[in-house]
């Protein structure tokens, strides 16, 4: 009688389950990490990022106004808002994440990077706010549109940041 040879995936499964989840580095990495941590208080805004921040603020304000009218049930004209497309939202979020990580490994000046980070926090907050509202009202095409716009804003911001000169 011959025993059947397991396929590669089955064969490897037991090896994978034996892998340690945690592997300590050979040396303590904290000192070099600590030396690289940017103090959060010393961030200055470059003129280009001030313009970008203003653009973001404009979008945030217009989103907030729209959201106010939606919450207050004030009749507003909504022109052809697309239905909620979670896959599209996820793709936009992922595109932003990938671009952001690309910037993470680029050689931007430290103060430029700090300003970039601070503006991303603003956009992320707007996205979180829209997401929470959409979670509370999942079928709302208006909220989906706002969330989509916020994600697009993030991607466009990162695209502009990617074009900045490197140090």
């Amino acid at each position, binding site marked *: 009688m011959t025993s059947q040879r397991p396929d*590669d*995936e089955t*064969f*490897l499964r037991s*090896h*994978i389950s*034996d*892998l*340690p*989840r*945690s*592997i*300590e*580095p*050979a*040396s303590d*990495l*904290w000192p*070099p*990490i*600590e030396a*690289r*941590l*940017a*103090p*959060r*208080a010393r961030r200055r805004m470059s003129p280009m990022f001030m313009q970008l921040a203003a653009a973001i603020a404009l979008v945030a304000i217009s989103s907030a106004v729209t959201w106010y009218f939606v919450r207050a049930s004030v009749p507003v004209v909504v022109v052809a808002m697309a239905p909620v497309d979670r896959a599209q939202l996820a*793709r936009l979020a*992922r595109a932003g*994440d*990938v671009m*952001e*990580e*690309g910037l*993470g*490994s680029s050689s931007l000046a430290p103060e430029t*990077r*700090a300003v970039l*980070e*601070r503006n*991303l*926090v603003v956009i*992320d*907050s707007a996205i*979180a706010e829209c997401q929470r509202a959409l979670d509370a009202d999942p079928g709302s095409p208006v909220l989906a549109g706002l969330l989509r716009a916020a994600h697009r804003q993030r991607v466009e911001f990162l695209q502009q940041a990617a074009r900045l000169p490197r140090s």
Partner: protein
Amino acid sequence: MEPDALSLEVRRAQAGDADAFAALYRAHVGRIHAVCLRLEGDPAAAEERTQDVFVRAWDRLPGFRHESAFGTWLHRLAVNVVLAHRRTQWRRDLRVTVVEEPELLESPRLSPDPGIGMDLDSAMAKLPPGARAVFVLHDIEGYGHAEIAELTGIAEGTSKAQLFRARRLLRKALDR
């Protein structure tokens, strides 16, 4: 560290407390270093990426919204940091053609001393970078092919081909 205490450390670190961030580093460095090591396949590069991940995490912490566990967020960040760093090199390695006989694509890198067995981590470190990335992300970290394709910039079919290739090479190494 207990989850509640960890959550407190996260909030303190978000407010700029470097000591709290050091505590988070101690709690998570093993897991983060493990994923960096498996994706990079090289201890020195893995230590560099681990540093990058924590520096990046410090920069991004103010935007962490507690919608997922900090460990999950950090792990995802680690994958993104490693992939972003390696993307240019991997893009070259990942451009493979699906063929009937994957052995034709195999790298001579995975042909160490015959008769000497090895563990899975050692075998993975000897995989070609593209195949290693897909194997680690799919079989160890649980990502789907669509997600891997998006993260690495390759086609889903290429991801599947790389996974097939990685499993075949690993089995050959471990069967010895």
